[in-house]
């Protein structure tokens, strides 16, 4: 069964009247932990930009609005979603159109997260229908708002398990005039992370810091992105080249198309697209990243966020299993989640007991019948 309500009220009625589990879906490009017996509930009917004020850096749109539509409207005013949401399609081999609601529900951010912040940091307000069918509004459309509890953050990244987003308000930012990409080749993982830490600890406002391991055909590549006016990028690139001189030759490329392609490759985990095997996403303390990867033999890694984000590919029969990954990360602080693999079970990290108790409590409050995306956000079994 599939439902695509066109209004918030219809959506509320559907949820109130639901008799079984619902699988909430935007564009369907990020299928995680699907419950096989659930009815599909799509937000695509709740589409359209409701308000866009470039002078106030604010955009409000229906949750089902295609991301492409948003990006087009912003580009026309020289603005963008600064958190650079990842497109999962090529990594997961899915079809469909990513929606704004999907991005928010999964708190999807890209390489610029280290400097600009995550999706949740740009989220000003939400409207949501919870598991009881209540229409709830939280936050608003202004930049600073501490009126009451921040349910906006709670909803971001909750994968539709507390409620179905119907409308979101976002802060947007101007697109800078110029992008420069610094490139160092041949560094080991540890050397690369040290160089990236050095760059991120400089005053030169790095907006991307990634390391791609060596493959069969090419050497390893470490990328650093700078954005701003032409003069500013040139100046900062020069300073960083001097700062990182000890790491080897640092080249600068200011071609906009190549820069866009390079960072889309990092953002969408290009190296693992089309490769067989499970893909994991690890959030860790940057300096711990190379050590964690070294503990997982057979795994291939792509480092983003200066090492704070590790994309891991565990080739089929790679020998490393979920529990080992969770253990390696937990020992050094951080968490891991499997984003590609067995689609029937989502690979969420286990939580400490008191945190899990709060999470369960919240879920029972907002979805007392347990009908919203059952199975999602539930820590994977340790087997």
């Amino acid at each position, binding site marked *: 069964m599939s439902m695509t309500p066109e209004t918030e009220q219809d959506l509320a009625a559907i949820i109130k009247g639901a008799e079984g589990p619902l699988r909430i879906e935007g564009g369907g490009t990020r299928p995680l932990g699907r419950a096989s017996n659930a009815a599909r509930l799509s937000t695509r009917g709740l589409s359209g930009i409701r308000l866009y*004020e470039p002078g106030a850096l604010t955009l409000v749109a229906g949750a089902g609005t295609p991301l492409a539509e948003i990006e087009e409207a912003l580009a026309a005013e020289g603005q963008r979603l600064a958190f650079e949401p990842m497109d999962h399609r090529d990594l997961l081999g899915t079809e469909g159109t990513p929606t704004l609601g999907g991005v928010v529900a999964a708190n999807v951010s890209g390489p610029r997260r280290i400097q600009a*912040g995550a999706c949740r940091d740009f989220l000003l307000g939400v409207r949501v229908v919870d598991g009881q069918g209540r229409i709830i509004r939280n936050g608003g459309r202004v930049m600073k708002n*501490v009126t009451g509890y921040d349910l906006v953050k709670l909803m971001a990244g909750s994968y539709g398990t507390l409620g179905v987003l119907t409308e979101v308000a976002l802060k947007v930012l101007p697109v800078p005039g110029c992008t420069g990409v610094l490139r160092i080749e041949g560094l080991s993982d540890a050397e690369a992370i040290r160089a990236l830490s050095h760059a991120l600890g400089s005053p030169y406002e790095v907006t991307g810091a990634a390391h791609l391991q060596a493959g069969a055909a090419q050497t390893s590549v470490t990328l650093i992105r700078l954005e701003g006016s032409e003069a500013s990028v040139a*100046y900062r690139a020069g300073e960083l080249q001097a700062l990182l001189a000890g790491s080897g030759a640092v080249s600068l490329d200011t071609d906009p198309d190549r820069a866009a392609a390079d960072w889309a490759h990092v953002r969408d985990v290009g190296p693992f697209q089309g490769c067989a095997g499970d893909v994991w996403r690890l959030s860790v303390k940057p300096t711990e990243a190379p050590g964690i990867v070294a503990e997982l033999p057979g795994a291939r890694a792509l480092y983003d966020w200066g090492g704070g984000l590790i994309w891991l590919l565990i080739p089929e029969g790679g020998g490393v299993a979920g529990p080992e990954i969770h253990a390696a990360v937990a020992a050094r602080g951080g968490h891991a989640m499997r984003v590609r693999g067995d689609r029937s079970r989502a690979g969420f990290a286990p*939580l400490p007991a008191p945190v899990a108790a709060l999470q369960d409590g919240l879920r029972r409050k907002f979805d007392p019948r347990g009908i919203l995306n059952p199975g999602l956000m539930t820590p994977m079994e340790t087997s």
Partner: protein
Amino acid sequence: MQMPEPNPDILSRKADLVARLRTVLPQEAVIDDLAETRAYECDGLSAYKCPPMVVILPGSTQEVSRALAICHEMGVPVVPRGSGTSLAGGALPTADSVILGVARMAEVIDTDYENRVIRVQTGRTNLSVTGAVEDEGFFYAPDPSSQLACAIAGNIAMNSGGAHCLKYGVTTNNLLGVTLVQMDGTVMELGGAHLDAAGYDLLGLICGSEGQLGVVTEASLRILRKPEGARPVLIGFESSEVAGACVSDIIKAGVLPVAIEFMDRPCIRATEDFAQAGYPDCAALLIVEVEGSDAEIDEQLGLIEAIARRHDPVALRQSRSAAESAAIWKGRKSAFGAMGQLGDYMCLDGTIPVGALPHVLRRIGEMSGEFGLGVANVFHAGDGNMHPLILYDANKPGDLELCEAFGAEILKLCVEVGGCLTGEHGVGIEKRDLMAHQYDPDDLAAQMDVKDVFDPRWLLNPAKVFPLDASDTRRRVA
């Protein structure tokens, strides 16, 4: 301001409570003499006050946990307090409550420059977090005007902002992890030195929950490398409306300064007396700051000045030295206190869409005439976070009530134009009863559901945030 009746049963067990607290805390960390508890009867909002039953000053997470467990067991409400600088009455006690002050927990636990994170006890003041890392060239970005005195604990409770959050974001955008003690004494870690913790964003939920979900004893904060330089420019205008239009144009042009601050004439004069910053005497002043190398600063200020000139500024001057920049900011950050020279005031904190600035400033001016109370304006113009200061005479009967009514009208106006009641100070006690103007019953119910989960007995920071009638049933059940 209506507060719940103190529970006589709790009051009658005060001696027992004090004795038990003294078994887990040092003697001088438990204060129960009325002569002494009175100093804790209010915070930065002195219009409302009530001495607490007991004050405790624990020195560690473990002491906090043990003390909370005792209060939980005895059903005694607890009001967490940072430095007591809240302008919303966020740390206002009830007569049957225990004030839990974190001022004795102010140590730096770990500084990690490579991962750009510092771990501190939350009694540490905001500015001294930067103080701990500035020798290495780093800083902690959120800069509430009270940053000299306000504690990280309070910053987290209120999700504090500041002048520079136009670029760097507010507390929630710079908070990576916390140690949270629940009302029953359970200690848990949320987040850490890594980004985007597992599970629901409980860290984001805790931040800004006004001390009602738990007591935060330690925090991991993101630190950033200081920019090479920063320079403010002062731009004076003949009217607030013109200044507001200029702000909107600057943002629309794609230049994003780190801060755009606004002050009107009464504020300019009061702060100039204190800081001698060389502010021009004009109807409306913008302080616009940009960062970077000298050349980058020149480039950005060039663009900003070109936009400003289209609005016929009556004064336009860049800061000429680090000392002058410091004085400019010292004046701005002391604006609330400096207004104290003129008399009593109530400081509001609504946010509005930037485009509505001229309209709202004009309406506030009109209402000032209607209520017969003066208003001074000082605020973060770049993000529409307004701080109208209503001037009144606290010793004149009826003036406070008049001031409250005026304040409520201004905040309703903020909501009406698409904004909110509070941008960075929090709801506290001050805006509690206005919450229904911004939120429908279901919106509030959803927030109170969260409270039910974290603090089922509703003991933490009672009578704040939610209108008493809205929370009545839940508190009764608890």
